[in-house]
C-alpha cells in the first residue's frame, strides 16, 4: 500500500513537472517562433484559396455568408465613384471595409440638396 502510494506520488510529480515545462514553453514562446519551430514550417501542399490569407482573414465574416460569399467579395474591387463630404465619408469607410478597394473621390452634386452641406 505504502509503496504503491509512493510510486503514484512519483508519477504524479513527474507529470506535474512535465505539464509545468509545457506551460512555461507556451508562455515564453513568441508566435513568430512557433512557425519556425513547427514541424512543417513550409508545408509543400498549398491550400486552394481564391483570396490571399490576409484577405480571407479580413473579409472572413462576409465570406461565410451565402448572400455575399467568396464570389461576391471577389467581384467587389470595382471602380466606384462617390462625392466628397460627410455623407460620403461614411459610405467610403463602409465600402472600403467590405473590400471595394478602388474608390475614386469625385465631386457629385446630383443627390445633394442645395442648402445642406454634407
Amino acid at each position, binding site marked *: 500500500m505504502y509503496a504503491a502510494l509512493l510510486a503514484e506520488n512519483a508519477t504524479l510529480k513527474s507529470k506535474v513537472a512535465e505539464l509545468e515545462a509545457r506551460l512555461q514553453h507556451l508562455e515564453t514562446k513568441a508566435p513568430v517562433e512557433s512557425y519556425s519551430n513547427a514541424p512543417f514550417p513550409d508545408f509543400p501542399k498549398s491550400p486552394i484559396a481564391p483570396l490571399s490569407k490576409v*484577405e480571407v482573414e479580413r473579409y472572413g*465574416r462576409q465570406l461565410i455568408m451565402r448572400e455575399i460569399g467568396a464570389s461576391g467579395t471577389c467581384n467587389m474591387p470595382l471602380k466606384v465613384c462617390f462625392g466628397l463630404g460627410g455623407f460620403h465619408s461614411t459610405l467610403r469607410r463602409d465600402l472600403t471595409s467590405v473590400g471595394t478597394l478602388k474608390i475614386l473621390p469625385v465631386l457629385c452634386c446630383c443627390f445633394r440638396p442645395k442648402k445642406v452641406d454634407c
Partner: protein
Amino acid sequence: MLLVGAGGLASSAALYLAGAGVGRIGVVDFDDIELSNLQRQIIHLPRNVGTSKAESAVRAIRDYNPEVDAIAYKCHFTSQNAMEIVKPYDLVLDCTDNVTSRYLINDACVLSGKPLVSGSALRMEGQVTVYHLYKDTPCYRCMFKEPPPKAAQGTCSNEGVLGVVPGIIGCLQALESIKILSQSGQPLASRMILFDAMSATFRTFKLRSRDKNCAICGDSPSITALIDYEAFCGASANDKPTPLALIKPAQHIVPTDYAALLLQHPDDHLLLDVRPALQFDICALPHAVNIPLPEIDSRIEEIKTLLESRTHGSNLSPAIYTICRRGNDSQRALLKLEALGFNSVKNITGGVAAWAQEVDPKFPTY
C-alpha cells in the same frame, strides 16, 4: 453614456455620440483588435491590431471630439463589476454579440434604473429597441424569459455579418440614445425596428408592455442582485464556439500527425471536408473532398465510390479523415459515418483553423 462592447455596433454609435457632444462616453471591452474585426468595426485601424479595443475606441472618440470625457474599461463586463461600471452613466448601449451579455446588461440596467438601448446584427439583418425606459416599457427579460438553447444562439463568427449592417444599427442606437437624453421625439420604447438589408426594408413592430411577473422588473421580482449569467444561459459571454468532446480520444488525430501521414501516404485515404460549400470555397486542403455535414446521409454512395478508388486494388480498407472549420462538426460527421457502417474514421482535431496554426501558416483562417 456607456457602450458595452467596442465592435461593429459601437463603432458607428461611438462616433455619432462623440459628434453630438455627449459629455461622457465609457467603452467596456476586454478583447484586443483582430484583423478579422476590421471588416465591420470601422472605429479600429489596421495599425492597432493586437491592442485593446476599448482603448482604441476611446482614442477614436477623443480624436473626433476632444471635448468628450471618454473612458476605456479594458475588462470583461461581469456580475461583479457591472453595477459599479454602470453607476456614473445615464444610459447604456448594448453593443455586444451574445445572449449571456444581453441578460447581464439588461439586469444591471434594471437594477440601477437606467434605460437600455439594445442593438444586434447578424448576417443581413439587424434589430434595435429601447428597454426599460418608462414604467410600462418591457425589459429584455420581459421579452425573453428564458435564454434560447445554445445551438440556437447564432453568432457572427459562425454565421457572418456584412459590416454595414451593424453600422446602420449602431447609428440607430446613437440616434435613440440622443433622443432619450435630449427628451425629444418618441423613443423606440415598446417598439422594435427590424432592418432587412437584403430587401432594404425597415419594419417597426409593437412590443408587449412590461411583464408584471418579470423576474427582474416585475411587481415582485425574484432577482434582486446580479446572478451567474454564464450558468443561466449555458454559454460563455463571447461569440466563440466552445470545443466539444463528442468522440473518444483515440478517434482524434492532431494536425501535425495527419500532416506527417499525408506526406508519406498522400492518396491511401479520403479527407472529407464537412464544412458548408461556401466555406470550402474560401480555402481548402488541395486533396480534400467537400461533403457538407447535412449531406452525408444522402451522398453515402459517393463516399463509398471515393473510398474504393483509393484502395488501389488492395484489400486494405482505406481510412476516412474528417475535417471542418474548428473541429466540432467533423466529430458529428465521424459519429454519423460510424453509424452508417464506416469503421475506420478519424477526426482532425481543431479543424482547418488548427491546421493553419500548427502545420501550414500559409493556410488562411477566417
